[in-house]
């Protein structure tokens, strides 16, 4: 067989729109993930036993079940169960964000463990209240130290967005499925989609590695 890219090139417009859509979904989901992760970090350090236990259970569930199943549960089960009617896009973003949140929480925990105890003591000596210690002293330093890892987390999020095609979110994978159903050229279309994903993820992960190398240099 011979690949005929020229035939599909004029019709790839929707795919590039969908690429932007994928990146948009990724950014929002990542933002949700950072929010959820921060919440989990605070809960892990709370003095209430139940909250700490919940964080462990949540992390175990997210890491123990496939992202696809989480998305399906969120879309078909959780949202109707709570009586809220949300579209596939919102459900998808929330599901991916909550998935990412568990991993971001782990990243933030790693960052938190590198904060020297002197920071806590200094904040206490200055008489800062607890919430100010967290939000004005500790968390900014934690975020700053984990930026390279958060950049890598973004590529992870981009790599789970194709699963949203199962709940009819028209991102890059769904758009390419629609295109090859029209043109009957799955190989060319999927190769193009793979190339687009590769370019996005590779460039971001290389940038993350660059940031990591740089931060290593400053630390040493």
């Amino acid at each position: 067989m011979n690949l005929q890219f020229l035939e599909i090139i004029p019709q790839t417009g929707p795919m590039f729109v969908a690429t932007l859509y994928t990146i948009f979904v990724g950014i929002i989901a990542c933002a949700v993930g950072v929010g959820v992760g921060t919440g989990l970090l605070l809960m892990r350090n709370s003095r209430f036993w139940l909250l700490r236990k919940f964080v462990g259970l949540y992390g175990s569930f997210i890491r123990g079940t496939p992202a696809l199943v989480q998305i399906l549960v969120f879309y078909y089960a959780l949202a109707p169960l709570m009586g809220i009617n949300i579209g596939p896009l919102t459900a998808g973003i929330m599901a991916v964000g909550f998935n990412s949140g568990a991993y971001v929480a782990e990243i933030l925990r790693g960052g938190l463990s590198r904060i020297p105890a002197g920071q806590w003591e200094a904040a206490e000596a200055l008489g800062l209240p607890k919430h100010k210690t967290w939000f004005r002293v500790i968390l900014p330093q934690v975020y700053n130290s984990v930026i390279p890892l958060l950049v890598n987390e973004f590529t992870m999020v981009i790599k789970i967005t194709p699963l949203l095609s199962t709940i009819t979110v028209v991102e890059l994978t769904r758009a390419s499925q629609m295109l090859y159903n029209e043109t009957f050229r799955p190989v060319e279309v999927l190769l193009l989609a793979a190339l687009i994903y590769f370019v996005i993820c590779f460039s971001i992960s290389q940038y993350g590695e660059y940031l990591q190398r740089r931060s290593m240099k400053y630390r040493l």
Partner: protein
Amino acid sequence: MTFDYMAIWDNRDILSQGLLTTLIIAGTAIPVGVAIGVLVCMLRISKNRLLRWPAIAYIEIIRNIPLLILLFMMFFALPFFGVRLSGLTTGFICLSIYGGAYFAEVFRGGVEAVSKGQFDAAKALGLKYGFYMRRVIFPQLYGYVFPPATNIALTLIKETSLLSMIAVSELTYAAHDINGRTFTPVETFATIALIYWGISILFLKLTSGLQSRIEVGHISRPITIR
């Protein structure tokens, strides 16, 4: 809202069949993935560019493309070249190739973590490359690579759920099937989520039992996938 647990119980044979398929795919793809990983790792750390560069290309391409796209590509592309494989075989091959890239990266991380003096000492003793790799370097590797490798094996178990998209009748597909017959999405998807969770917890218990026998080192850059 009422729950219809009978819908699950009546279709328990579909679920158990799906679970079995999931376990079979994961149980075959993980060892094959590890084998590919060892092979690619050896190529990746070799001094010869002709061996190293294809390995780098393989690792980077697989690691930066979503598994779903790989699955679809293989599922649709192979028939174009006249190769007809069942969804199950395609999925198994795809998962092995996918896992191989991540395992290779983990093993390379381990080899780099072994101190350089070990290589120098082995060379100074005049040991042959294959011999010192097998008898000196690899035995020291287990502690470094075991935790991240179990992580990736667990990920592969979870990623078998994607095979439902190419009509392999594993656990997630079984859930879609039951949901289509009985229209009980809440119960079915919650059930399979619990089953996957149970498999993962069991797997982690088993591997941590193994791990406690091995001296555990730590790896500088944890490699995880999902």
